[in-house]
Structures are given as structure tokens and as C-alpha cells.
């Protein structure tokens, strides 16, 4: 007995298999006992872990845990952070036919110990100076507002990203005032609701602030604030997995392109090539799986540039090099009982230092991006507490006198996927590798742009052009031609 399931996307196909065939008749047992035993059996089966397939959760020692990569996939997404899973989710939404394409997400570190997503402060704002960034943020805000309609899975509890709509407050000195006002005009044209405040208005609204040397401030009134990145990442993962996205743990370290097949013309490197295989290396092992693929999406975040360098691409195919590098950023947490109250926004000072309220018990998070010449070594995620003592704290204490006495609680470090060219994301196809798409380099605002960037790349892959957001200016062409698209509001 097989039932045909229908859902909002039409015919889902036949609901599988042997467990719906008519059960053999029970011999002479009262009906309640039979169904009771059936329920007991189902409950016991549900208790068993679903990992590990046929092994029932135990794998022989020496074998890598988790599912192995398949031998072929239509789209391989390298990187299992929020951008990678967003691309995978939108690919499934736009594919048009259930199980129309096989999408594989490859994540190097399933514990996410170094992933930028989960170490992020979690802010979302529309106050950017580039129109594309403003539009991506607005798209993402409306996505997050209706997150249960997009990412809700039946029979699971509703998703709560713990969004705090407190807004961003950017302060500007007299030198920067004209620039800030021009930026606010642009943001308002794009539909963002931003208010300009004078020092007197600032003092009235936020009496805990010292407004010395502040000429004007811009305050986001709606759809700005912060949320929990882990919840968003898990929501994307769960929904994408329920739509049929495969995932595996592994490190992509090699591409096999069609350049090896083509006859070399007098030793010249081929102009373009297609990636035919992706080599996924198993963790702690020498073995690797070549996965035949049609399309590769590079969502490796801070390591997007390193992926292309290490991929063993021949000759000029790796040119121009992708200028995306990991940059270490510290986030410090402290407790201050007399600090700013409930109305505290995410304040970005004239000096670049920022902080926000964390919960309601008088805790705050903050940090600062160091100047170029003082960039810390991104080799590991160790925290430099002197940076807080000497650089961040004095600046914040000058702006908020209550912070003169605070108790540091802890700190962590994470990576920005810093685009050294112009500090904006790179989205779109590679100039030389025909089936490689890139979605990385957001330089600190990748989390808030992830839903929009995922949709944009999925539209490029499925339909061949941008439909909901026109992000052509964020493509690779500007890197090749040397025309930076600057973003002033990088925090």
C-alpha cells in the first residue's frame, strides 16, 4: 500500500518502501496489545541514534565518523558556514523539481571551532555606504522576520533567533559628518529607516554617553540589531537537510579540471576550463574521494583564497589570485553594573571601537578592528588581552564614562574573511573556471548578508542571472579590472 504525498511544491512522489506494505495479520492477539507493541517498537527505534547508517552509531576505530562523500554530486558547496548552507538551501528552493539536483556541502571542521559564523557578534544593519550592501541587508532582514515560513520544518519547534531590534548607532566627528549625512541619504533612498541625531538629541536619548567631539550620529530605527548566529546556522542546516541536501566532513584540497584533457597549444595555458572533480580529503587520513561535479561553489569564508591557491590549478587558471585572507578579530565581554540600560544600541564610536548590550544583566560585548599595521597574526585564535586594556577600553571609557570601572568576563577571537581589495563580498562566477562560483570576502558582514548572498548565487546557478537582487557589481570583474567598490562602514 503506497500513498502519494502532495505538498506545496506539487507531487512529492511516492512515499517509500517496504514499511507501508500491508502488515501480515496478527494471529489471535487482542487488537490493543498489537498496536501497543507496535508503538513500543517505534519508540525504541526512535531512541536509536540516526547517525552512522547501518552501523547504528558505532564506527570501527580508525574510520572517520559521519557520512562519506558520494562519488558524484551536481553542486559541491565548499564550506559549511552560514553562507554555504544558505546557498545549499536556496538551491533546493529554486531547483523547481524535488530532488532535481544533488547538492553536497563539504565542511572541514564539523565542530565549527574556527568558523566565522559562530564566533560572530551577530549584528544586522542597513547602514552601509554601498547600495548593494543595503539591499542585501534589507532582503536578509525580511527573510529573518519570516524565518519560520522559510526555514520551518514540520513537527519541529518554531525557530527563535533571539533578535534584539535595538539598532546601530554610528557616531561621526565634524570631519566625518558630511560623509555620514550623505550615506544616510543613500540609505533612506533605499528604504532603510535611519534617523540623524544631533549631540543634544544624543544626550537626551542616551544620557550615559559623552558626546564630546561628536558632530552627528546616525541611528537605525527598524530592522537593525543583533541575533544568535548559531540558531540561524542550525536552522539553515536542518531545513536544507530536510530538503535533501547531503553533507560530509572533509577538506577540499584539489580540483581536477578539463585543462588536463585539452591539447596544450604550444605550451600556452588554456584560457578557461571546467572543474571535473573535487578531491575531498578525509580528516586525519591520507585517503581522499574524487567527487565528480557539475558546479562548485566556494563559500569557504576566510579560506576562500587559500582554497584556490592550494587546489593545484594549472597555469594561469588561478590568476588573478583571490585577495581574501583571514583576519583575526577579538571580541571582549565585560560586566558593568551602571552601564547603558535597556535602550543601548550597538554603538560604533568615531574611533572604530564598538560595543553592544548582551542580555539584561549588565553584560556587554565589544571590540575594535585594529589599524592595518597592527593586524594580529591569524595563525591561531589566541586572544590578546592587552589589546583590550590598551586600545579598546580607554576609547570606550571615554565615550561611556560608566565603563571606567568594569569587570572583564572573557574574550574570544574569530576570523573576518577580509577582502584586501575593497572589503566587500565577491559574488559570482570565476573568470577562468567556468563552473566555479564564489560567495566570500564579506569582511565582517557576511552573517547578515548570508540569506541574500545565498539566494543570489542560487539564482545564478539555477537560472543563469540575478533576479531578486542585482549584484553584478559585486562580481569578479572589479578584481580583474582593478576598480574597487569601497565600503566605508566596515566595523
Amino acid at each position: 500500500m503506497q500513498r502519494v504525498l502532495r505538498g506545496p511544491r506539487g507531487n512529492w512522489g511516492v512515499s517509500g518502501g517496504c514499511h507501508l506494505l500491508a502488515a501480515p495479520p496478527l494471529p489471535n492477539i487482542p487488537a490493543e496489545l498489537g498496536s501497543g507493541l507496535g508503538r513500543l517498537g517505534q519508540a525504541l527505534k526512535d531512541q536509536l541514534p540516526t547517525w552512522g547508517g547501518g552501523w547504528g552509531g558505532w564506527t570501527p576505530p580508525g574510520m572517520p565518523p559521519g557520512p562519506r562523500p558520494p562519488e558524484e554530486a551536481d553542486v559541491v558547496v565548499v564550506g559549511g558556514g552560514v553562507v554555504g548552507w544558505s546557498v545549499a538551501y536556496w538551491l533546493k528552493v529554486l531547483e523547481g523539481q524535488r530532488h532535481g539536483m544533488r547538492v553536497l556541502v563539504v565542511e572541514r571542521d564539523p565542530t565549527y571551532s574556527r568558523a566565522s559564523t559562530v564566533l560572530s557578534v551577530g549584528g544586522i544593519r542597513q547602514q552601509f555606504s554601498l547600495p548593494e550592501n543595503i539591499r542585501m541587508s534589507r532582503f536578509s532582514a525580511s527573510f529573518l522576520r519570516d524565518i519560520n515560513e522559510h526555514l520551518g520544518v514540520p513537527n519541529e519547534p518554531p525557530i527563535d533567533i533571539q533578535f534584539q531590534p535595538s539598532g546601530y548607532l554610528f557616531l561621526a566627528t565634524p570631519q566625518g559628518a558630511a560623509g555620514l549625512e550623505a550615506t544616510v541619504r543613500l540609505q533612506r533612498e533605499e528604504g532603510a529607516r535611519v534617523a540623524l541625531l544631533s549631540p543634544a538629541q544624543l544626550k537626551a536619548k542616551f544620557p550615559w554617553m559623552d558626546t564630546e567631539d561628536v558632530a552627528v550620529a546616525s541611528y537605525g530605527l527598524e530592522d537593525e540589531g543583533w541575533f544568535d548566529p548559531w540558531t540561524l546556522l542550525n536552522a539553515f542546516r536542518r531545513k536544507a537537510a530536510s530538503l535533501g541536501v547531503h553533507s560530509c566532513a572533509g577538506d577540499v584540497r584539489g580540483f581536477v579540471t578539463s585543462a588536463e584533457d585539452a591539447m596544450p597549444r604550444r605550451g600556452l595555458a588554456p584560457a578557461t576550463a571546467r572543474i571535473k572533480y573535487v578531491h575531498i580529503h578525509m580528516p586525519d587520513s591520507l585517503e581522499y574521494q574524487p567527487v565528480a561535479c557539475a558546479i562548485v561553489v566556494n563559500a569557504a569564508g576566510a579560506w576562500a583564497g587559500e582554497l584556490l591557491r592550494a587546489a593545484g590549478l594549472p597555469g594561469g587558471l588561478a590568476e588573478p589570485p583571490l585577495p581574501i585572507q583571514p583576519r583575526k578579530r577579538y571580541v571582549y565581554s565585560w560586566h558593568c553594573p551602571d552601564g547603558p540600560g535597556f535602550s543601548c544600541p550597538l554603538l560604533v564610536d568615531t574611533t572604530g571601537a564598538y560595543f553592544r548590550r548582551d542580555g539584561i544583566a549588565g553584560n556587554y560585548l565589544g571590540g575594535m578592528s585594529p589599524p592595518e599595521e597592527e593586524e594580529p597574526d591569524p595563525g591561531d585564535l589566541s586572544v590578546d588581552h592587552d589589546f583590550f586594556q590598551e586600545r579598546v577600553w580607554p576609547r570606550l571609557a571615554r565615550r561611556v564614562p560608566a565603563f571606567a570601572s568594569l569587570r572583564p568576563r572573557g574574550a574570544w577571537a574569530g576570523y573576518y574573511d577580509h577582502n584586501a581589495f575593497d572589503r566587500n563580498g565577491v559574488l559570482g562566477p570565476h573568470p577562468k573556471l567556468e563552473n566555479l562560483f564564489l560567495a566570500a570576502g564579506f569582511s565582517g558582514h557576511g552573517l547578515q548578508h548570508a540569506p541574500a548572498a545565498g539566494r543570489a548565487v542560487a539564482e545564478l546557478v539555477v537560472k543563469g542571472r540575478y533576479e531578486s537582487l542585482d549584484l553584478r557589481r559585486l562580481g569578479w570583474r572589479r578584481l580583474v579590472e582593478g576598480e574597487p567598490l569601497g565600503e566605508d562602514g566596515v566595523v
Partner: protein
Amino acid sequence: MWGTGRGADPLLLPPPAPSRYCGFLRDTYGDNVVAAVFTLSCGGGVRFEGQERWIRPENLWRPEVLRLRDVPVVALDLSGTPLNYNGLDNLVPLTRLQHLDLSGCPHLDDWALGRLHVFGDSLRELSVARCPRVTERGLATLHHLRELRRLDVAGVRVPSPGLVRILLEEMLPGCQVLGMDLGDGTGTDSPPPPGGEKPPA
């Protein structure tokens, strides 16, 4: 099998028609009529400036609302209606709204509360009591409402009601906060109905 079986959480179902934007009325009749028509079609009540009576959907309201088309709306009772973020499009242009009752709205969440800043100059009484999706994070956005004198937050689920009450009182110095008391997770007895006069049920 969306929306059926054990997982048929009514909060997950899309809200019905009252999130439509009655923009087609705006050009002919103005913002106040748009807000009044929207509120009345949701099942709520409207009170205009200078009027003592609330207009309710049970009465014949269409001719009366048209008669008052140039009078500002000062009070809206949207308690128990399926109002949501998009439905607020109909209300945000109001400039003289003084009393807003949003208690018991099942779809009103923190994002929607973030839109109420537009009433910062006029709103004096606000109720978000018993809204299941409102949390302390949405309450933190109410600091824009400088004229607020009564805020009813009974039944709003927050982690520590006593602390949130203190933070609210600190944030809105001239405002009386009702319904969030120490040592009680869901607020105590329901406060007297705020403002205006309601006709007997």
C-alpha cells in the same frame, strides 16, 4: 503535509487577510480612514478625536467613518486581532494616536514592536499584554515612545520579570509599568482596562 498533525502550531500558519495594506483608500480618504477601516475589518475598535464613543465593527461603521474622514484617530483597540508586522503598514502614518491596545495579538512579535517608534510624539498608552511572541527584546525598543504614560506588559514572557520591570521604568521615566511584578513569571491580576470607554459587552 504542512500544517497538519502534531505540528499544526497556529503561530506557524500564515496570518489571514488582515495583514493587507488598504492603500487604495489612502488617496481618496486619507491615513486616518485607512487605519480605521483596517482596524474595523480586523475586528477592533476605533475612537476619533473629540468623540467619546468607540466605533466597533458590530455597529454600522462605514457611514460614520466616512463622516469623520478628516478627524484624526486617537485611539485604536486591536486586542485579540491577528495583526502582524505587515498590517502595521496601515497604522504607521497616524500622527495623533494616543492610545493603542495590542493585548492578546497572537502574531505580534518583536520585529513588529520595533515599528512603533513612529508614534514617539503622541502615544500615551500602550498595551502588549498577553502577546505570546513579545519578549523583553521587543520591549527594549519602546524607549522611542517618550510620551508614554501607561505601559501594560502583563503576561509577557520574560526571563526575570522584576529585573525587566526595573529596566523598563528606568528606560521610560514618566511611564507607569503595569503587570510585571517581582517573583511572578506571568504577571498578576489583570489591570483595569486602560483609557477610553468601552461599551458594555
